[in-house]
């Protein structure tokens, strides 16, 4: 309790606070950078497309495709920011933003569009009319206009692949239909992480789509990645305390061997910036008055937190009986090549161990062993093969172990005060097979 208070007081010190604030906005809040890194051609392409809609009144549709964390929303945000700075676009363009996670149904999506466009059937917040009426109204509003006199509308559909799961894909069909016919200039922008998104579209919807896709595949080399890391961690030149920012920027953190090793392993895992941000955030959050520069130890600690195996952590906290059950299941997997097993078989293996090799494990009754087994089920370390309807008795229901051989052996090494006969039993399997 006191420690929490202390931390707060210490951080109320100006410069550190400011540095933290800046870095947190960059790393957590995903503040838009001035220029997206490594995405120049895609940026130009998208900007040109949208300019044509906003200024010249051309209808368009485009899909931005890229894996999670590759910068789709960031790219779109930067392009829209630049677009809105153009004088002609600023006054005219209407923006409608939809998200597949929020608007899970065409009805909800339609109401949202009507609301965002402030059409006449919206009073305050409430949209009147049924789905059919709203759709007819919207289409009429969109189709009445023409190139010269009506305002261009930009439809941004985040999580585009989720819209393809709606019934009949009504919304997509109508939006793309409007973008094909020469009426109100409309641009339909989809953002999605699925590469096969076009397979999800119906034939009639696919034919109305312009098949324009912008792919965001990161092509950074490791050296460029290191530059990005330095840039992300550096304070801008207009920072209020130049001495502090100078010292901070010249900390030579990235030249350290261990840090470079960590960054290389992160880079090999995934090139996107989101995982980098979480690593950097964990390190940056340790900065405080008493600890005012970023040190190697912080990054090493952060990497250790990120790269730990969560199942190994769970195994660490199991009781001896549960651990023995897991070893019994591992033996069954080894003997029967991964065939599903049931509780009776596991109990049988366990009994064999108790009778022959064990000195330290007490002989437990079957219901007690069953309760331990059910605990493993609750932790989802063991899963039934056909989850759901079970017409079979509990003891005979087939299950699978959700752990790998290596994970079990490693967990055994780390297990506190593991009895030696249990360890011997776990290691004895190899002899048994051969």
């Amino acid at each position, binding site marked *: *309790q006191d*420690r*929490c208070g202390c*931390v707060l007081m210490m*951080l109320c010190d100006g410069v550190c*606070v400011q540095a*933290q*604030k800046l870095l*947190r*906005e960059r790393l*957590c*809040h*995903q503040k838009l950078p001035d220029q997206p890194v490594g995405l120049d051609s895609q940026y130009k392409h998208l900007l040109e497309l949208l300019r044509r809609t906003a200024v010249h009144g051309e209808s368009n549709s485009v899909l931005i495709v890229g894996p*999670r964390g590759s910068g789709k*929303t960031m790219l779109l945000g930067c392009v829209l920011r630049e677009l809105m700075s153009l004088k002609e676009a600023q006054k005219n363009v209407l923006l409608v933003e939809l*998200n597949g*996670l*929020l*608007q*899970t149904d065409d009805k*909800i999506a339609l109401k949202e569009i009507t609301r965002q466009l402030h059409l006449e059937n919206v009073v305050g917040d409430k949209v009147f009319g049924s789905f059919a009426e709203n759709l007819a109204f919207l289409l009429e509003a969109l189709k009445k206009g023409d190139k010269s006199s009506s305002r261009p509308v930009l439809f941004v559909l985040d999580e585009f*692949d989720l819209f393809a799961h709606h019934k009949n894909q009504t919304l997509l069909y109508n939006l793309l239909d409007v973008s094909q016919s020469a009426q109100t200039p409309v641009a339909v922008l989809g953002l999605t*992480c*699925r590469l096969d998104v076009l397979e999800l579209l119906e034939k009639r919807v696919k034919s109305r789509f312009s098949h324009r896709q912008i792919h965001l595949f990161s092509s950074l080399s490791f050296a460029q990645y290191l530059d990005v890391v330095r840039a992300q961690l550096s304070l801008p030149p207009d920072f209020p305390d130049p001495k502090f920012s100078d010292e901070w920027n010249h900390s030579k953190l990235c030249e350290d061997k261990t840090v470079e090793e960590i960054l290389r392993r992160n880079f090999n895992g995934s090139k996107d910036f*989101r995982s980098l941000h*979480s690593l950097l955030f*964990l390190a940056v*959050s*340790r900065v405080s008055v008493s600890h005012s520069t970023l040190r190697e130890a912080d990054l090493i600690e952060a990497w250790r*937190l*990120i790269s*730990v195996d*969560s*199942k190994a*952590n*769970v195994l*660490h*906290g*199991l*009781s*001896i*009986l549960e651990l023995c059950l897991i070893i019994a299941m591992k033996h069954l997997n080894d003997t029967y090549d991964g065939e599903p097993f*049931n509780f*009776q*078989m596991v109990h049988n293996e366990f009994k064999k161990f108790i009778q022959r090799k064990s000195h330290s*494990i*007490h002989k*437990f*009754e079957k*219901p*007690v062993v069953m*309760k331990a087994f059910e*605990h493993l089920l609750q*932790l*989802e370390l063991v899963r039934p093969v056909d989850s759901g309807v079970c017409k*079979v*008795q509990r*003891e*005979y229901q087939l299950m699978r172990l959700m752990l790998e051989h290596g994970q079990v052996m490693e967990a055994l090494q780390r297990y*506190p005060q593991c009895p030696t006969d249990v360890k011997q039993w776990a290691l004895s399997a190899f002899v048994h097979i051969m």
Partner: protein
Amino acid sequence: MSHQKSFQYADLLSVLERVVDIMSAPDQYSYPSVFIYGHRATGKSHVVLSIMKDLELPHASVDCVECVSSGLLFHQVLSAFFGPDAAALLPRCPSLSDFVRLYKQMSSNSPATQTRYIILDRAERMRDMDFSLLPALLRLQELVNDNVTVILLSEIVWEKFRPNTGCFEPLLFHFPDYSKGKSLVQILSWDHHPSYTPELYASYINILLGVFFSVCRDLRELRHLAVLNFSKFCEPLEKGEAKESDIHKLWKNIEPHLQRAMQTVYLREVSSVQWEQQQMDEKEATTLRVLSAHAHIELPYYSKFLLIAAYLASFNPARTDRRFFLKSHGKIRKTNFLKKHEKTSNHLLGPKPFPLDRLMAIFYSVVDSRVAPTASVFSQISSLVTLQLLSQVGHDDQLDSPKYKCSVSLDFILAISRCVCVCVRLLDLLALSLVIQSQVVRQERSLFTAVSNLHLL
């Protein structure tokens, strides 16, 4: 109490430091979502809520078990942050879209001066709710454009939460479990009874952990057991038979009691009230009425034989019936007794279905008197099905040749056959089926002689 709780944190100080670091700048942005996992009763909810209260951060704590529908979740979050009037603005069956829209409206009226925290306890339930709820909540900060962080607490690891097409990955933190010596004994000792010394209670806890620690590490279970059994532990002290320093004597008194507790109270076969009562009137040596069927079920005479016959039918392969149940079966051929696929013991694979005719055939050969095939015998089969001692396999309306399966274990059958005044032959039959099942194929010759001897009886 707070000093006791802070003592508890000594074990997880490093995790606590990280979590506090993340929350230590409330007027700045924090990571959009955090996932904390750990075993039961390791203090996840307690620690997080204590931090929230101590730092006086605006938070909404929701237990996902209570949220049968997502509307309840939205209601709780909005009323915690913006008051009940805001929550009343939600429409009847609010969708996620309504929630986000309303949140944006409310937060533009009263923007967040400090980071708002949404704490979702037992978050594994969220996987069964709306498929878009979990990914949307993980990126709530981006969707509502406000300084809000979502903290998920769960027992299950993050890999089991991840949706198919991915989502915004939260920061992961593991709450470590208690070690036996340092933390667990200390925490359990806090409940010590005021009329006895803490050292006595500590030795009691050590004895309790000696029995139960290898089975269960859940703090709540251990506390429950400690509270229930302490009065029994102190009985010799009250009666004057032992002093506080006679640990060995006290141990001898309590240890069988704890073993019995493991069979009953730990498994919830008896309620704690029944257990406490039983401790008080133990002189009458009343046996506990346990929940499970096999201790006290009463069946009619022929039903017992039917059940035994059903067990034999389920677990013996049909080919062996002739050998066991016919009085004369001709030449015994020394064939390979068990087929290859039957080598894995039937006892491990579970009961097999059998038709009604086979059941009746075995029944007539097992029962020790002549029984006429009347309706009363057959109706006992359907009552066995109702009692769920047999289960019907296949379609309900298949009246012609119904198939059944035996759903009781060997212990139950042995208990029944002991109650019934059955001759040695029946017990031998059961024992024999056990021997056969356990793959002792090499002793065929002696087995054949044993079988033929049986039928000469």
